[in-house]
């Protein structure tokens, strides 16, 4: 190491810490509000609007084959037509009622998405045949039918939650061993902040735009958590490294030096990670759109919290 004089950071994050806290606190409150509003909304009844993966049921996606512009299809008419349909019953069970079927018409009538109760493949084929008769011809090769039993959605949710909690605990343990308890606590706080805000945005999206969360959303939350910890660790690593050199400076100044030194890296890294994600949002398949949106939000927030939240809180907790 060089024996440079004490560095004077160009940018002092601790001078703006009140602003940073208020901003993050407001974002967290808004997110919580969104989650609570979702929960008390009788139509949703959960902190986030659960998609097919969690509720169970059958989703059928169909592409219509039209040479020119597609003839208009009324979602309501199609819905009523499907509701009148009776599907063959499975042995020992009554045939599911299709009254609750929901039809969405997308891409100027080119594609149709049907949400139905749990159907077996035979029953789903009956529904597809009905749509074929009503709005055909369809492109057989572009049909996608997903059926998820309710037990599986439950398993998925439990599996994701448990693995998330276990990985949090393991990461906290690792940081405690490598650094310090306070660092571990702050890293987890940051992680909670990032995950909360990402969930909050999707709660509001669910409330206002009817966006549902699927199992890919669970994957994106896990990713955001991992990214958030990595980002925070880099700043903490810098603070620890400078402890001996900057021993004479008060802790807030040490934090400023570390944040200033890692600021370029933090911004560049989020930029380089966000580039492929933004590309996925604009050019990626429809299946990955909301996944990329969730990751983009989470990574942007994660980058912010590693600069503005974790380091500025450090002097507060380390003083004791």
């Amino acid at each position, binding site marked *: 190491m060089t024996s440079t004089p004490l560095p004077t950071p160009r940018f002092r994050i601790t001078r703006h810490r009140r602003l940073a806290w208020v901003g993050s606190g407001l974002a967290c409150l808004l997110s919580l509000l969104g989650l609570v509003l979702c929960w008390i909304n009788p139509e949703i009844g959960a902190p986030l609007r659960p998609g097919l993966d969690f509720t169970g049921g059958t989703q059928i996606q169909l592409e219509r084959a039209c040479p020119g512009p597609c003839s208009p299809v009324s979602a309501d008419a199609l819905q009523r037509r499907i509701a009148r349909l009776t599907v063959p019953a499975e042995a020992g069970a009554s045939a599911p009622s299709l009254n609750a079927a929901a039809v969405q018409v997308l891409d100027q009538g080119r594609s149709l998405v049907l949400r139905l109760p749990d159907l077996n493949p035979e029953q789903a084929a009956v529904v597809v045949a009905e749509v074929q008769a009503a709005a055909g011809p369809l492109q057989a090769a572009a049909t996608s039918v*997903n059926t998820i039993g309710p037990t599986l959605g439950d398993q998925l949710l439990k599996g994701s939650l448990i693995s998330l909690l276990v990985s949090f605990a393991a990461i906290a343990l690792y940081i405690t061993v490598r650094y310090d308890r306070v660092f571990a606590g702050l890293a987890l706080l940051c992680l909670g902040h990032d995950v909360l805000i990402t969930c909050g945005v999707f709660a509001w999206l669910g409330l206002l735009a009817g966006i549902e969360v699927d199992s890919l959303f669970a994957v994106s939350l896990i990713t955001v958590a*991992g990214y958030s910890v990595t980002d925070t*660790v880099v700043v903490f690593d810098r603070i620890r490294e400078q402890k001996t050199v900057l021993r004479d400076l008060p802790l807030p100044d040490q934090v400023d030096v570390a944040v200033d030194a890692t600021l370029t890296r933090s911004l560049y890294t989020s930029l380089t990670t966000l580039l492929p994600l933004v590309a*996925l949002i604009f050019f990626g*398949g429809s299946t990955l759109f909301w996944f990329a949106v969730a990751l983009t939000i989470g990574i942007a927030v994660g980058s912010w919290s590693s600069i503005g939240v974790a380091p500025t809180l450090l002097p507060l907790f380390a003083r004791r």
Partner: protein
Amino acid sequence: MARQQGWFALILALAIAAAAVLASFPLQLGLDLKGGSQLTLQVMPAGAITSVKPEQLEAVKDVLDRRINGLGVAESTLQTVGDDQLVLQLPGEQDPSRAAKVLGTTALLEFRAQRPGTEQQMSGLLKLKRQAQAVLNQRRQRSQALAEGQSAPDTPAVDLPAQQLAESLQSLGVAVPAGSSEVDQLELLLAEVNRRVVDLYEPAELTGRDLTAAGRQQQQTGSGWDVTLTFNGEGGRKFAALTQSIAGSGRLLGIVLDGRSISEASVGPEFKPAGITGGSASITGNFSAEEARDLEVQLRGGSLPLPVKLIEVRTVGPSLGAENIRSSLVAALSGLALVAVFMVVVYRLPGLVSVVALSLYALFNLAIYALIPVTLSLPGIAGFILSIGMAVDANVLIFERVKEELRAGNTLIRSIDTGFSLAFSSILDGHVTGLISCAALFALGTGLVKGFAVTLAIGLLLSLFTALTCTRSILRLLTSYPALRRVTYFLPARQLPAGAA
């Protein structure tokens, strides 16, 4: 210098090996990318068994494997997942409903003799059954013919007057939901009749366990198919005893599959002395060719030791899959191209080196996917893209440190060395925390999450290698040439401390 060249040779050799691996082992794509159906089955504990043990799961898998092979589905795979689940993958444009039907049934075949003194009840039920079945078959044929745009087949009309149907239903105590069609009512009637027929049989003496082979043959008269059965020695003896006990008595032999009476046969008085010997029998059920084949497959596969339940079906049309893979690929590549431009603009010579190192990184990653093999699905691709982000981050961390050292007025070679060694601890911590999450996700997560964890973990391990080895040795090799050892290839001149360079 010699050491750098050694590393460089190793990296080159690895790159060639990776390219060779990719050329000879194709990447395996998940069904969400290439299209196809995925069926998830839950094995249910039944009777005395309260939890599914690994042996039982294996036994169920064996039976299902035989059944699927019998169906003649191309390239299907059946895997066990977790403690009590099986996943069947059917690639391409194949209808999952037939597979679902064949997989889901227990195929418990029983041969049961009719209880004495029930002849009258039985003949009444069977008459009703034949009548309802005939009407139902004709209705189905007609609607199928109509759906295919042909005129209805010209067969003599059979009919079950609505009033008679309603009376039969009522006498059997079947509640008919309001507004159900004639076909629905016929189906309800048949189900109830079958249940009552089965009640008239003695408990089973002979089951499908004693079966050694099953086949099918076209009926000599008529267009239907028969399913033929061959028993083992003990089964043959039991079958002879069973047929002897009812021969000539007017009582029937019931063939019951999964609690459904599929065939009722009478045994003529000529078999009174010894029963039907020879260890074989046939089920005359007027099956269609496809039904006979499915039944044969189920019987040959044996009965399932435990019942299974279909809990998930995912079908992605092949063109939808192709669309997904194409657009995701375009997105990933354009994003990465932007990252490459960014790195070269911001970091100059080392930026260029890192682009080479990151291309190698992507190549190694894909080669490992092909080698293990990892089936690439959408979450897997997401894990791959994220791990590229982490790999870029490692390079950014190193180069920022190198720049700092240069700004502090250090020599080029020393700055590079210090930059690498100072960045190491944060890179290591970031990667280890990532790997910890991967381990937790892999151990506890479900299918989708697992695929993501695997690709991310491979990516993290490789990125440790490429960032610390590839980037470093290529950079060192280049700076061993004096022409390239210029600080301005690393940092704009105005950022240098006065007097340096």
